């Protein structure tokens, strides 16, 4: 087993399991439609709240898709083979995350223009929204993978993972909605984007190692 063969197998697994990525997308759309129905479909409410609605929906959708990341490998024993393969586990986790990110985020970004019309976001703000998604979502995936690694041995780990991991999503959501809010009122938003990038880079270095420790403890 080499890093390349592992990456190919992950890409193949995602294509064989397209339904998981589609589920995350549908879940995202579902959460988005809650707000107009639940609160009010008027432009006065939806336009200022659009950034927050989309980001909360993205956070929940990513949590749902990352939660089951290791479960299948844990059940059929291939996670054990990864631990024993002699390859550096954090890098394997990172590769798996890259595949997961592309599978969930790319369709989401393609969908964003349509969604932004549903929430009355005008075009310049849409561009800022996509920018924050590209910069901020890796942090969500990376922190989520720690939760996935911690709850891999539990049969019903989804709620527990939400409880543990969601508080760590708050800085990302705060700064991304802050950037969108600043753009909406015409203020410069590159400060918020810089902090968002800093958070993503920090989790990039920290999370794979923590997830690897948790996986090695869970596999027994």
């Amino acid at each position, binding site marked *: 087993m080499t890093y390349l*063969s592992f990456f190919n*197998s992950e890409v193949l697994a995602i294509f064989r399991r397209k339904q998981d990525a589609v589920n995350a997308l549908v879940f995202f759309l579902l959460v988005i439609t809650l707000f107009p129905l639940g609160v009010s479909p008027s432009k006065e409410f939806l336009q200022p709240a659009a950034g927050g609605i989309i980001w909360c929906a993205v956070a929940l959708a990513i949590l749902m898709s990352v939660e089951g990341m290791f479960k299948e490998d844990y059940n059929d024993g291939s996670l054990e083979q990864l631990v*024993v393969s002699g390859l550096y586990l954090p890098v394997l986790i990172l590769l798996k995350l890259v595949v997961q990110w592309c599978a969930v985020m790319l369709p989401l970004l393609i969908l964003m223009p349509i969604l932004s019309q549903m929430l009355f976001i005008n075009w310049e703000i849409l561009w800022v929204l996509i920018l924050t998604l590209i910069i901020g979502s890796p942090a969500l995936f990376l922190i989520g993978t720690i939760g996935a690694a911690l709850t891999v041995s539990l049969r019903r780990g989804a709620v527990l993972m939400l409880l543990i991991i969601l508080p760590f999503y708050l800085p990302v959501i705060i700064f991304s909605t802050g950037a969108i809010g600043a753009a909406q009122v015409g203020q410069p938003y590159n400060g918020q984007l810089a902090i968002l990038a800093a958070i993503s880079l920090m989790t990039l270095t920290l999370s794979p190692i923590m997830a690897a420790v948790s996986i090695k403890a869970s596999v027994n």
Partner: protein
Amino acid sequence: MHSNLDLSISNLFIERSERVLCENFSCLIKAGEVARIMGENGAGKSTLLKIIAGILQPLEGKILFAGEDISFHRDMLQKHLLYLGHHAGIKSVFSVAENLKWYCPNKDIDAIEEALAIVGLAGYSDSPAHQLSAGQQRRIALARLWLTDKKIWLLDEPFTALDVKGVSVLEGKIKQHTNNGGMVILTTHQSLSDALCVKEIQLVS
């Protein structure tokens, strides 16, 4: 090449779910040897294999491999290691050939076909793994033995899913592997043919 591959374990203390499985257990296994871990059910045979493989950490004890101390970081050993545990490690979403291609990327398709034929799965290479029975999935994992170039094999009950012919084929492969310098540590309930000159290690609890 007969490099220095010996694995020495000294005063290992294993505890599993509040039960002490063995105290200061020591053994030395050299290249070219077949070691069989003896002990009744639940004595910790699989646990010992998992500790050697690096899946579990012993509470106390030192493990040396080729002179290096690998008690905390087994990746030095894992680079030469092939571990077959209770789980077959076969992804049900892949086909049989894809599973083997994933584990042994440097082998081409007909080497894989040949290995499958040896374990009695000829012609299954394109069928998805979830259609196969658990026994057949274990035999896919065993097919890796014919495709791998790893020196050290840790086999947990390798003979369970095999018929008589399969057992002798696997014993022949183990014999061939240890002849050219490999090392095999296994646990099994069946008696092994004495052609293998098995070195028995008793788990004292």
